[in-house]
């Protein structure tokens, strides 16, 4: 069986000690706003909990 591997995106350049994170996507202003929006986050809260419950029911437990 071949286990697929994603090519590493955030590597440490030769001679450097810390990883180059410049390829990591920065969140947009609207993403940051959504992350703090009470109304939007209330929906995400419900969705996240529903997903956990679905996993519990799908799993062997």
């Amino acid at each position: 069986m071949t286990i697929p591997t994603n090519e590493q995106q955030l590597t440490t350049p030769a001679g450097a000690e810390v990883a180059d994170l410049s390829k990591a996507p920065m969140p947009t202003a609207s993403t940051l706003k959504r992350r703090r929006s009470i109304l939007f986050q209330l929906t995400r809260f419900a969705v996240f909990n529903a997903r956990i419950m679905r996993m519990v029911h799908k799993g062997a437990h």
Partner: protein
Amino acid sequence: MKASHPMADIVILGAGVSGHTAALHLSRLLPKGHKVTVVSPNSQWNWIPSNIWVGVGKMTKKDVVFPLAPVYARKGIDFVQAKATSLWPRGDADDPRPAVEVEHTSDSRRGQTERIRYDYLVNATGPQLKFQMTQGLGPHGGHTVSVCTAEHAVDAAAALAETIATLKAGTPQTLVVGMGHGTCTCEGAAFEYVFNVDHELRQAGVRDRARLVYLTNEKELGDFGVGGMTFAESGFETTSELWTGSLFRERGVEAILGAHVDKVEPGVVHYETLDGTRHTLDFDFGMLLPPFGGVPLTAHDRDGSDITSELFAPSGFMKVDADYTAKPYEEWRAADWPKTYQAVGYDNIWAVGIAFAPPHQISRPHKSPNGTVIAPSPPRTGMPSGVMGKTAALSIVDRIKRGPSAPNHEASMANMGAACVASAGTGMRTGSAAAMTMMPVVPDYETYRTGRSLEDTRGEIGLSGHWVKLMLHYLFIHKAKGRLGWQFIPE
């Protein structure tokens, strides 16, 4: 064995998430007369995920621990405050019934030993924190702090407060958070702690004077010891590496990847990276987690001869119904992972949570050109731990109620989901968290192209994650206290 003892003695070693869960379900499901005994060296239960908040001073120790004895008294469970030292699974010279030898740790009986006989045994001993594997690591005579226990976290918070005070006085500081050895597990906890520290530094108005470094044994960010994840987002597939990297970049946290820490001196971490080069990092505050091993337990035959290697892997974890055949990473399969957690050769012993020996790493293991193993160990804490505890309890209940032919219950980590909510700052309006779900924990490439269900494997960052983390804190403490409706709260 059971036939000669209609009333069974069930002994559970350990009162962490898995052992405590097993004890509560056994006491709930077994008819009166059967005896459930929990052996734990600690008198208190600790909701470990919230130690992160203790470690930044947002919670006190009292918020994350409670005494076990009153809960067990209410549930009719015997509690022995002691550490298990040896197993006698075929009995001993005095008695053919299996036994576990324990050494008491309570103030009143410290050092006394006794053999407790059992019909069924659940080994849920959790990890041994092996700070000693890295010279100078840890809070016991070392030069770094830890958040592995509530006490450690209290000390971490004090050290962090000192660092923040120094920053406020205008002196730049370097803070390093991460893994103290190449074979550590629980990268999620270090990830969570580094972003809580970042949040605290921002709240204190000193972030610009602090260099914050995440030092990890993961080859890639977002590996978390589970080989990373593939997420579906906005109609595209992306990786947990980019998702995690985004948070690091946004918050200005530096990352040192694929590192094995081999020595810590006062203010200096020495480490080797995957390319075989050696480095040092000067630091003012260091929180580095230790590698885990099994607790030191020996096993003996009736005549006293040592049979430890029959029951335990060299790591000290107990061998269960997994496929431990040595083979290359590419040949590992989801089916290799245990389903029942029953010990090899003993149908009345189960090992759950961290106590069972995983058949292989989930994350691809690596070695540096110098032969140093840098390979995150598989996580098996939290949600999976509780499920395993319940699974062992249900198997024992069936065995007692329906006889020795009752089949074991099953719960493979290759068919089990988990949620990881890594808090990245506290506050009902200002908090944040990176919340992930993965299904299954152990990737199954024969069922899913990406190893996991894209529908259930998701990551999101935001305030709601903080609410989830807070909800889990109160919910699981309620459950662990065995309060009204506890059994309806999923593991």
